[in-house]
Every structure is written in structure tokens, then in C-alpha cells.
């Protein structure tokens, strides 16, 4: 039987597959073929192995699983003949990748083949190794490849050079072994060898600084000469591409010269002449020539300055930019981005052309051009450029709007010369493409609006107009709803009119209607609706005459199936109905968020995780919520508890405020897990549920408020004074009575528990002391005591803790944030843990301690699971 007569059968299979009319038919054919191949594999049949593997490769290309053929590749590779090896290596490269264990088995065969007397077999092995080698194989076979760099046949040397690239990429330590052989390869005449040696040389330079120095000293001159010869060589049909001698070689030479010349004036000097020659003499009417020019421009931009050459390079780019060929324009835009850092003025001159490219019909060019415009914008041209971009936003296609919007917003935020311009531009963007705007962008917009007190009236009126026309853009609606809630009175009374405004008449009813429409729009999502409810509550206070109307609207949501809406509407309804005296204090204007702090937080300069959640600041706003999600997430204890922001209605407001705006006062307490502080407060106020149940939470809120007294005096006053002055309200009195006794409660009642060393390292120890409140066994009071065992002082000391869902944790402020060394003092911090499964589960806690030691951030983490069982 002839094992090589198998070609026909492969053809037959391909024909059969191609003849299939449906995917099901194709699957059937493939299944049948696979079954017979599997049978052959398990019979270890030799004759058709070759053909079967070829079939498998075809099946693999169609996307079917072919893992059972992997071992067949190895068997074919191990066979002695060239035909078997050839198909075996092809299968190996096609069916396997470097991450498969099977590959290790082939190392031995590869080693033998690398030492084979037949140069074509050596070539096959080098090719396979170069394409799929893993780090282990690279390490094992590097000596063979290194030796083959000196093989007699140039075609093996070139393969060995490329194979070496793979090896040094996988195992950079091996790089130094290749430096000397490459230096001698660079002197060869054979183009294939030169091409690959230059590539290897470039990769060596990238990996090893020493190699770079070596090649820079020894080879720069030689390579410049090679490039000169290549550029000036007479016509050679073998290497000619549209009249240019071996553009591939020229491009690689330009690339290696770029690497050698970068940051080295002497080397750059050596190559100036030839670069000038390439830049001026290369024909630019064919792609090959342009490819060389493109590479040459990049080299000129990267090597040490030579003014004349750079002018030449910028001129080439200018020519590229006005080329009719899209490819050339694309690379011009690409290169201009790099040129900005070299010669910004020269690039600015092409601004008009670049702006035209933003509107090109080709998505790739648009994207490049937009990136470039983004880099070109500065204080002096921001207004006209932004106007162009926003005008284009109206007509751009949908795929592009997302990118375009993000860039416009970023430009406006970064470079806006004045607030009114910022607000105007953002409103235009929101109206045009609000649905593409990211949350943080409109959050930032609201922060800016709150800060621009002279523009409140103007803004709310513009937004009122905007939702009449662009109500389909959810984000416009949100911002408008928020602003109407806050500044509804300015809207109605036309307060703060600017000269440029046209007067308009909006009645109180109109304002409420606008919000009602927004909340009933079917496209509005939960967040928007929740925002509408808050705005309505605020309007009910701002416009007492509409109070009844607002109440009617709010009441409609009482039956909502969405818990968030239902809860809010019930709470708000009872505020409107029963607590007129509290309402105005509850819905006072939002305190102004400091823009610098907010943008700093967005930029990530403040830590995401902060012990301070700024509770007191939120209290005056009606619907705050303590969301400790970042902390929980980070500590990964009860991740499922952190609801996604959109579903928890309070959190967006919370976001707006910036939940760690108070992080300078990092010692304030944290309520864990998230129990909405104000929900509790509202519950207390409206339903008058037994204080015993909620006393502790109220105490939390109040105690936190007091702790933050110093840092948040203003906000706090606005909160606490109404509460105190309205203390005549018997309900509030009840409350205060309810938890009044708590602090004075003797603590040494009940059973005593031994102290627990919760954390101990060579530099720090933490001891917990426990006590219980009589009558509530599920609550444990913990006094944490930190001692510094090193001789240095720890500053900015912060203790954080997280607990699983069945526990609730409250952290009181620490006694100090500085911990003196040598045990000369300690920090104490009180914690209160409520165990909802008291008796069934014992306490567990994950802790995290951060502090600064000699201005270096230190972090300790740990988990405490050895709490006494009855806690």
C-alpha cells in the first residue's frame, strides 16, 4: 500500500465538505471523518497517518475540535522521512500552541532535528521552534539555535536568527549569548540573513541595555554603510519592488538606526546624511516608497535633534496628509501624533486638514484624527475646536459618537476657560449624545454647577428648555431633574438673569409637570425615577402651593414594584404629610462640593477606600445613603452586599457628593455593612417605631456628626440645628430619650471575655477587649488597642475592618491617628459588632491597617476568626 497516494482522499473530503448545503450536513460529514480518524488513531495505523493529519488540519480550520490529533503530530515528527516530518511540524504549529503540555514531549525530537544532516529538516525544526516555542523549550534548545547561526547554508542561518528572537523574548536572560553571533551576521551580504539579523539585533537592543551599547559602538557605522549600499544599489530584479531595491531591508535598517541613534548624539550624527538622502530621494508614488519614507520620518523624529532633517520630515508628513490615498493619510495622522512632542507648532499648522479628517467617511481615519485633535487642543484654540467637534457630533454616525463624546467631554473638562462655557458645551453634548456620556462626566457637571452660584438660575433655565427638546437623552433628564429640584425657585422667578438670556415664564406648576413627565417617561430608568422623587420632595418644600400636587404624584409610586421607588415614595409621602416642620431642613440645598477635591478623587489621587464616608454631609439632603461598597469590595468579605450603584437609589447622590470628600478627616466612623443611615432616620421620624430597635443607629448618626464637628462644621450645623430646635416634637424627644441612657450604660455588666490578640507582627500589635450590653447579647462592644513596637512613629494611622453579611459593624473614631514608637502610648478605637445569628455563628472579621512610616505607605492585613464562640 502506498502511504502517499492519500492526496486524493484529502481532496475528496474537502469536496464533500464544500458540497454541503447546510451547516448540519457539514457537521455530519466532519463527524464521520473524525470518527474514522479517531479509529485510525486508536489502531495506531501507520499508512494513513500523514493523510489523516492533513484532513484534521482542514477540519481544524473549519473550527471543529481536533485535540485527539495532537499525538499524531508527535508521531509524524518522530518518523525518519522528510515528508512525514514536514506535515508533522505543520500540524504541530497549527493544532497546538505554546501553552499545551503536549508540547514538552516534542523537545527531544526538535533537538534531534536541529542536529540533522538534512538542512531542510533543520529548517523545519527551526521554523516550528520559532513559531510556538515555550520558555522551557527555548531554554533547552537555545545552544542548538546559537550554533545554527553559523550554519553553512544562509537559509538556515536566517531561520536560526528569527528563532533566536523568539528565544530571547521568552527567556531574556539568554540575550547576551546572541550578541556576538549577531554582530558577525550583520556583516553578511545575503539579504535574508541581513534582514533577520537586523531584526534580531533590534530585539536584543530592546531587551538589553548592554547589547544596545555594544551594537551602537561596533555596528552603527557598518549599518549606515549597508543602508547606503542598499539605497544606491543598481537594479536587481530579485529584490526590486516597484523600482525600489529591497524596501524590506531598507525599512529594517532605518528601524535599527532609530534604535541606535535614539538618545545618542554621536550615533545620530553618523546617520544624518543617509537619512537626508532617503528622505529626499525615495520615490513616493508607490506604497513601497511611502513605507520607507514613513519609517524614515519616524527615525528622524526619534534620533537626536538635527533641525534640518526634522523640517524635511514634517514636510513629508504634510505631503502625506494631503495625499488622496487613505492609507497614506492614516499613517500621516499616526505619525503627526508622535511629531507633536517634537514640533507642536508645525503640527498645529495642519489643524484644519486634521479636523477635516475627523469627519472622514473612514472610521479608522476618524479615530486617528480625533486622537490627534485631542492632543492639539490648547487654551488658545479650545473654543473653535470644540465648536467644530460638537457641530460634527450632530451628524456623526452612531458607532463614532461614543468616542467623540468622550473626547469632547474630556477637552471641555480639561481646558474650559470659564464656567458658563463649560456648562453650555456640556449641555450641548448632553442634548446631542447624552446617552453616550459616562456617569462621571455628568456627576462632574453637577459639581461644577453647584460651584457656579451665579449661574444657578441660568443653568436651571437652560436645562428646563433642554428637556423640552431633548427629553429622549436620559442624562439630560437626570441633570435637569436634579437642578430643578435644587434651584426650582430660581427657575420660576427668573432669578439671576444673564444679559444674553431670553426671558421666559415658568410657573411652579410647569416645573412640577416637567419632573412628572420625566418620571413617567417609559425610557426613564430606576435612577432617573428615584431622582425625580427626590426633586419632587424638594419642590414640595420650595413651592408650598404645589405641595398637594407633589403629594399626589409621589403617592402614585407607593405601589411600585421597585422597592427603591416604593420605599422612597412612602417615606417622602409621610414627610410631606406629617413632618412639615422638618421638611424644609431636610431638603435644603446640597452643600457645595469642592471641585478640586472632587476632580482629585476622579483622577485617583485619593484612595478609593477611605474610612470616612462623609455621612454628616449627606444628612441635610433628604436621601443620603451610606454605601460602603468600595471598602466591602476591597476586603472581599460580603461582596454580594454591595449593590450596583444604579439599583441603590441613594448611591448616585452619594456619588455626586463624592463619598470620600471628607477623607481628610479619615478618622470618622464607618457603618458596616451598608445600613442606610437616613432610611433609619426617616423611619424613626415617620413611623415612630420603638426606639429600642433603632436607637443604636440613630446614635451612630449623631455620634458621627459630632465626631466630624470640626471638619464639617457648616454642613453639620445646617443639619443638627433643625433637629435640635425641633426637639419639641415629642417624637424626636422619644428618640432622644430612647438612646439617651445608652452611653451611660454601665459596661461591666454581664459575662466577661478574655482579651484577644487580634494582630501581632514585629512592629505592631492589636488587642481586642470585649464587653456586652446587658439585655442585647447579640451586640458586642470591642475596644481595640494598637501598640507600636518599633522605634519609629506611625502617622496617618487608619484601621479598617469588614465583616460578613450576618454581622453589622460600627467603628467609632480612633483616639488619634499617630502612634508613637517603642510602645510609648497607644491608639484605642471602639467597635460595635451586632451578630444577627448570635448563638449560631461566631464573629469573624477581616482587618486592614494602613499607616505611614517615614512617609512610606505601609499596609497590614489579616483575618480574625478566633473570637470566642459566644460573642
Amino acid at each position, binding site marked *: 500500500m*502506498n*502511504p*502517499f497516494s492519500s492526496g486524493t482522499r484529502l*481532496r475528496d473530503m*474537502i469536496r464533500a465538505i*464544500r458540497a454541503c448545503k447546510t451547516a448540519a450536513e457539514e457537521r455530519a460529514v466532519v463527524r464521520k471523518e473524525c470518527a474514522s480518524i479517531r479509529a485510525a488513531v486508536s489502531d495506531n495505523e501507520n499508512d494513513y497517518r500523514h493523510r489523516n493529519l*492533513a484532513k484534521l*488540519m*482542514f477540519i481544524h*480550520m*473549519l*473550527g471543529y*475540535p481536533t485535540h485527539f490529533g495532537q499525538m499524531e503530530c508527535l508521531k509524524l515528527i518522530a518518523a525518519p*522521512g*522528510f*515528508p512525514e516530518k*514536514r*506535515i508533522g511540524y*505543520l500540524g504541530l*504549529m*497549527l493544532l497546538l*500552541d505554546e501553552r499545551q503540555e503536549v508540547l514538552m514531549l516534542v523537545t527531544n525530537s526538535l533537538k534531534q532535528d536541529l542536529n540533522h544532516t538534512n538542512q*531542510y529538516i533543520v*529548517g523545519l525544526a527551526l*521554523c516550528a521552534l*520559532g*513559531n510556538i516555542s515555550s520558555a522551557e523549550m527555548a531554554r533547552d534548545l537555545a545552544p542548538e539555535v546559537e550554533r545554527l547561526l553559523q550554519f553553512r547554508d544562509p*537559509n538556515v542561518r*536566517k*531561520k536560526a536568527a*528569527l*528563532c533566536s*528572537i*523568539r528565544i530571547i523574548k521568552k527567556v531574556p536572560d539568554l540575550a547576551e549569548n546572541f550578541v556576538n553571533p549577531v554582530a558577525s551576521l550583520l556583516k553578511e551580504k545575503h*539579504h*535574508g540573513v541581513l*534582514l*533577520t539579523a537586523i531584526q534580531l539585533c533590534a530585539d536584543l537592543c530592546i531587551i538589553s541595555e548592554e547589547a544596545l551599547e555594544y551594537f551602537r559602538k561596533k555596528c552603527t557605522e557598518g549599518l549606515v554603510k549597508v543602508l547606503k549600499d542598499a539605497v544606491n544599489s543598481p537594479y536587481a530584479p*530579485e*529584490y526590486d519592488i516597484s523600482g525600489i531595491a*529591497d*524596501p*524590506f*531591508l531598507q525599512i529594517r535598517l532605518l528601524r535599527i538606526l532609530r534604535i541606535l541613534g535614539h538618545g545618542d548624539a554621536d550615533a545620530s550624527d553618523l546617520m544624518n546624511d543617509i537619512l537626508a538622502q532617503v528622505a529626499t530621494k525615495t520615490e513616493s508614488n508607490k*506604497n*513601497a516608497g511611502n*513605507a520607507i519614507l*514613513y*519609517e524614515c520620518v*519616524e527615525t528622524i523624529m526619534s534620533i537626536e535633534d538635527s533641525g534640518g532633517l526634522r523640517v524635511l520630515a514634517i514636510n513629508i508628513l504634510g505631503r502625506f496628509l494631503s495625499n488622496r490615498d*487613505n*492609507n*497614506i*493619510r*492614516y*499613517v500621516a495622522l499616526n505619525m503627526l501624533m508622535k511629531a507633536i512632542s517634537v514640533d507642536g507648532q508645525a503640527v498645529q499648522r495642519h489643524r484644519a486638514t486634521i479636523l477635516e479628517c475627523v469627519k472622514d467617511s*473612514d*472610521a*479608522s*481615519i476618524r479615530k486617528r484624527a480625533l486622537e490627534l485633535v485631542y492632543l492639539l487642543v490648547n487654551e488658545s484654540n479650545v473654543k473653535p475646536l470644540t465648536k467644530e467637534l460638537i457641530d460634527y457630533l450632530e451628524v456623526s454616525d452612531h458607532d463614532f459618537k461614543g468616542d467623540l463624546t468622550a473626547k469632547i467631554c474630556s477637552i471641555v473638562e480639561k481646558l474650559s476657560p470659564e464656567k458658563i462655557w463649560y456648562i453650555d458645551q456640556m449641555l450641548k453634548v448632553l442634548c446631542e449624545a447624552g446617552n453616550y456620556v459616562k456617569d462621571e462626566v455628568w456627576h462632574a457637571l453637577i459639581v461644577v454647577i453647584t460651584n457656579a452660584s451665579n449661574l444657578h438660575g441660568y443653568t436651571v433655565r437652560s436645562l428646563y428648555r433642554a428637556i423640552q427638546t431633548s427629553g429622549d437623552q436620559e442624562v439630560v433628564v437626570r441633570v435637569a431633574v436634579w437642578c430643578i429640584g435644587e434651584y426650582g425657585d430660581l427657575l420660576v422667578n427668573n432669578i439671576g438673569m444673564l444679559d444674553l438670556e431670553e426671558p421666559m415664564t415658568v410657573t411652579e406648576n410647569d416645573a412640577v409637570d416637567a419632573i412628572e413627565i420625566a418620571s413617567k417617561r417609559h425610557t426613564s430608568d430606576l435612577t432617573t425615577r428615584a431622582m425625580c422623587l427626590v426633586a419632587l420632595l424638594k419642590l414640595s418644600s420650595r413651592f408650598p402651593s404645589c405641595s398637594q400636587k407633589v403629594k399626589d404624584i409621589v403617592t402614585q409610586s407607593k405601589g411600585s414594584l421597585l422597592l427603591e421607588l416604593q420605599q422612597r415614595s412612602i417615606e417622602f409621602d409621610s414627610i410631606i404629610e406629617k413632618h412639615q416642620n422638618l421638611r424644609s431642613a431636610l431638603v435644603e440645598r446640597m452643600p457645595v462640593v469642592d471641585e478640586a477635591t472632587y476632580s482629585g478623587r476622579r483622577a485617583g489621587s485619593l484612595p478609593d477606600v477611605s474610612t470616612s464616608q462623609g455621612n454628616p454631609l449627606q444628612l441635610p439632603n433628604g436621601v443620603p445613603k451610606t454605601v460602603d461598597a468600595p471598602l466591602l469590595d476591597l476586603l472581599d468579605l460580603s461582596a454580594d452586599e454591595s449593590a450596583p450603584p444604579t439599583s441603590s437609589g441613594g448611591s448616585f447622590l452619594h456619588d455626586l457628593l463624592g463619598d470620600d470628600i471628607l477623607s481628610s478627616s479619615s478618622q470618622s466612623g464607618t457603618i458596616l455593612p451598608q445600613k442606610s443611615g437616613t432610611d433609619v432616620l426617616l423611619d424613626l421620624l415617620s413611623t415612630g417605631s420603638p426606639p429600642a430597635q433603632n436607637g443604636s443607629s440613630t446614635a451612630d448618626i449623631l455620634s458621627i456628626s459630632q465626631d466630624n464637628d470640626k471638619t464639617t462644621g457648616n454642613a453639620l450645623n445646617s443639619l443638627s440645628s433643625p433637629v435640635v430646635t425641633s426637639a419639641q416634637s415629642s417624637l424626636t424627644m422619644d428618640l432622644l430619650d430612647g438612646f439617651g441612657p445608652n452611653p451611660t450604660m454601665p459596661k461591666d455588666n454581664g459575662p466577661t471575655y478574655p482579651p484577644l490578640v487580634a494582630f501581632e507582627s514585629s512592629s505592631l500589635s492589636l488587642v481586642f477587649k470585649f464587653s456586652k450590653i446587658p439585655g442585647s447579647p447579640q451586640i458586642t462592644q470591642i475596644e481595640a488597642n494598637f501598640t507600636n513596637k518599633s522605634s519609629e512613629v506611625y502617622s496617618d494611622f487608619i484601621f479598617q475592618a469588614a465583616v460578613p453579611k450576618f454581622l453589622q459593624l460600627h467603628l467609632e473614631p480612633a483616639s488619634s491617628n499617630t502612634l508613637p514608637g517603642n510602645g510609648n502610648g497607644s491608639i484605642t478605637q471602639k467597635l460595635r459588632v451586632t451578630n444577627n445569628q448570635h448563638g449560631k455563628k461566631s464573629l469573624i472579621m477581616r482587618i486592614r491597617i494602613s499607616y505611614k512610616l517615614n512617609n512610606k505607605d505601609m499596609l497590614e492585613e489579616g483575618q480574625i476568626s478566633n473570637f470566642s464562640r459566644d460573642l
Partner: protein
Amino acid sequence: MIHFVLLISRQGKVRLTKWYSPYSQKERSKVIRELSGMILTRGPKLCNFVEWRGFKVVYKRYASLYFCMCINQEDNELEVLEIIHHYVEILDRYFGSVCELDLIFNFHKAYYILDEVLIAGELQESSKKTVARLVAAQDSLVEAAKEEAASISNIIAQATK
């Protein structure tokens, strides 16, 4: 560096794939799906580059086949177009005006040729003549082995008559 080479027909059928960077089987089919969606829908006059996952894919259409190569952001796109053309010209000389059917039925030949053009995602040879000579030499090695095997089986057949 070239991360992978794809040949996709106008109907979205894969005709050749070569991966120089590690992609699992699952990722491979995802990459192919994503890219054919992006590339096959592009109009004829547009530029030959698409940006994709922080890489660039350079493609060129020859008759019914799209030749695609994925490269790094900082690589020379125009040169890659030349490499594609280089490969196509070699295929053309080898098959004698190549068509899609040649590449379907002789897909392994297309791979053998590619292996003489690229290794480790880098260009190996800029002379079409040299590539053609090397592939031909290896083909003739295979032919010689075939003939030898045929004559041996003839001898065995005659001896066992």
C-alpha cells in the same frame, strides 16, 4: 511583530490561520469572528487598517480573499501591506495565477510557503525567487520519497506474487 495571519473569504470562511502569539482555541475563534465582522463590512475605498483591541490589523483584498495581518500599534502598516503583497505574489508564482480554490485544496502548500516567508511573526526572506526555490526543493524531496515508496511497494508486490 505580526501576531497572526488570517485568510478569510468574502463569505467569512477561514482559509488559513497562523498564530505567532499564543491564543487559545476559544480566543482564536472569537478573534476570527470579530475581525471578519469588522473587515468584511468595510467599503472598498477605505484605508486598509483597522484598530482592534490596541493592535492594528492590516488587510488587503485580493479577488474573493482578504489577507489580514495583526501588528503592534507602533509597527509600519505600509510595510505590512507590502509583506502581504509579497506573499500573494509568491503564491501566485507557485500556483500559476492563484485562486481561492488552489488555497482550499492545497491549503498545506499555502502554509509551507508562509513558513518560508515568516517565522516568529517576522519577515524571513525578501526575495521571491529564493522562497520559490526553497519550497520547490522541499516539494521535490517529498516527490522523491513518494517514488521511492512506490518502487519499494512494487518490488514487494512482485516478490509476493
